[in-house]
């Protein structure tokens, strides 16, 4: 028994130590962002605390604008996905019709083909539509989300049909039934979908990089990359770290507060879009 205890105890210690190793890059990032520049990189900061780096990058880079752009994109994408996916999921869960198989083929296609792979043809479509360097252009490939449809459909299927039928008999129309009966029952699935969608679009880089070319549309990730590769940032790691911290902070804080919710969401979504 004591041997078993010793074994599990040493496993605990080992997993904590490994966790600390895993945290090194983040600790270094935060430490460097909030301390004075030093010429040698060290695990832990050895210079005094300062807000200079954060202040400098906030003034040098139009982060305010980038924040606004990113929030508009993330919220806009999610809200539209919310409606399109709910309707499609309800349709697939409730009705049987010819051609349904083909719809599933399209859904699986999107699940196995990550959007980033289709940058070339999608950029051409965007240019045909005149949507280059617009916020709508950044959002549009994601407005029909296979991941969300599938997730919600699975959930809707578990809701007893009688519940919806009862609402219909009481005079509720289709939308009222979905809104009043199905959505409240699938709250957990909606939470997962929200977490996945928001973190994906907050962090997305390649597509916004290609689509945007002005400050009014650029996202935080694109702005950071611009700065990290610019002359002002050359070798100035304290500034690059400060800029990085500014862009990752909201999602990181949300994650640290709701660790369980985040991890469960990634499991239930099964795929990043």
């Amino acid at each position, binding site marked *: 028994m004591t041997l078993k205890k010793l074994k599990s105890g040493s496993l605990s210690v080992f997993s904590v130590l490994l966790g600390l190793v*895993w945290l090194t890059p983040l600790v270094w990032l935060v430490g460097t962002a909030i301390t004075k520049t030093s010429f040698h*990189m060290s695990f832990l900061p050895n210079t005094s605390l300062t807000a200079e780096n954060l202040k400098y990058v906030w003034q040098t880079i139009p982060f305010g604008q980038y924040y606004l752009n990113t929030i508009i994109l993330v919220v806009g994408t999610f809200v539209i996905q919310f409606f399109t996916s709910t309707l499609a999921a309800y349709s697939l869960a409730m009705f049987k019709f010819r051609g349904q198989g083909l719809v599933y083929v399209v859904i699986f296609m999107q699940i196995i083909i990550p959007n980033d792979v*289709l940058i070339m043809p999608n950029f*051409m*479509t965007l240019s045909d539509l005149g949507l280059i360097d617009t916020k709508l252009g950044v959002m549009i490939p994601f407005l029909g989300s296979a991941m969300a449809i599938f997730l919600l459909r699975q959930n809707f299927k578990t809701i007893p049909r009688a519940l919806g039928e009862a609402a219909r008999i009481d005079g509720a129309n289709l939308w009222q039934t979905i809104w009043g009966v199905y959505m409240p029952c699938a709250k957990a699935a909606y939470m997962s979908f929200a977490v996945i969608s928001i973190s994906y679009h*907050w*962090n*997305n*880089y390649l597509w916004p990089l290609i689509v945007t070319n002005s400050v009014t549309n650029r996202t935080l990730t694109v702005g950071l990359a611009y700065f*990290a590769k610019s002359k002002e940032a050359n070798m100035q790691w304290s500034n690059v770290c400060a800029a990085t911290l500014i862009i990752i902070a909201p999602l990181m804080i949300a994650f640290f507060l709701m660790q369980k919710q985040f991890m469960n969401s990634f499991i239930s979504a099964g795929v990043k879009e």
Partner: protein
Amino acid sequence: MKTTSAAQRARKDIATAWLLLLPALAFMLVFTVYPVLRSVALSMTKYRMGMPAPEWVGLDNYIRMANSSTFWKVMQNTALFALMTVLPSMAMGLGLALLVNRRGRHIGFIRTAYFYPSVMPMIAIASVWMFIYMARNGLFDQMMTTFGFGPQDVLSNRTTVLPALSFMYVWREAGYLLVFFLAGLQSINEDVLEAASIDGATGWKSFRHITMPLLGPTMLFVSTIAFTNCFKLADHIIIMTEGAPNNASTLLLYYIYQQGFTNMNYGVSSTLTVIMLGLLLLVSLPRFFSQDKKIHYA
């Protein structure tokens, strides 16, 4: 009460079903199905910036790729990167999942520590690791100097650049794959393990003969995700190396991006896209042949 025949109602249901599907389906058709077809069509054309329209050339682009040493270099890099990341990150993910598959005081903290890189954008990770790998003053080179190996400047060296990027990637991906293994482990009935332990199977034996076989479907699913994720990544290359030195770190998606958006060669970029689609289909096949469909979204 209105009386409607069953046939009428069925027709109405079908119309409703399609109407509800329409918005999502339209976006998916235009931005998932159509681009696949368009890539295939454009891959058989010569089409560069300045040309008014694509020009049909049949399989010329494919033949050019087959004869291009750069193309084969890129494919080799992509294969090497997959080799150095897929199995290691799966093994690491499973190992971490086994470590955190228990209750305990610090378990939430530990899981958070392993998983947080998945919530960070790849370009933020790349910016940090660029400094870790920086010549002489970077964390890695300072460690190397301390241990007497001298600075390595891993990102500028043809032989070390891909292993260095892979190491960073495994650090990030292991935590992501962990969650799927954890879900798999937690779905294993504890009675089975208990019965086995009564029969004398403990530790490695029980893991090898009970846990591993029961994790089979999870493995299959995770391997698909691991392959897909490692193919779909170009952000780190854009930030850290831009394919340098001498294309030693150019991966397929970065090559697609470079051909399409730097060289403005849409035809070749489409050909590469089709090749990428082939790769993705190949690594997704196990998912369709697997028996237990439930694991996909368990």
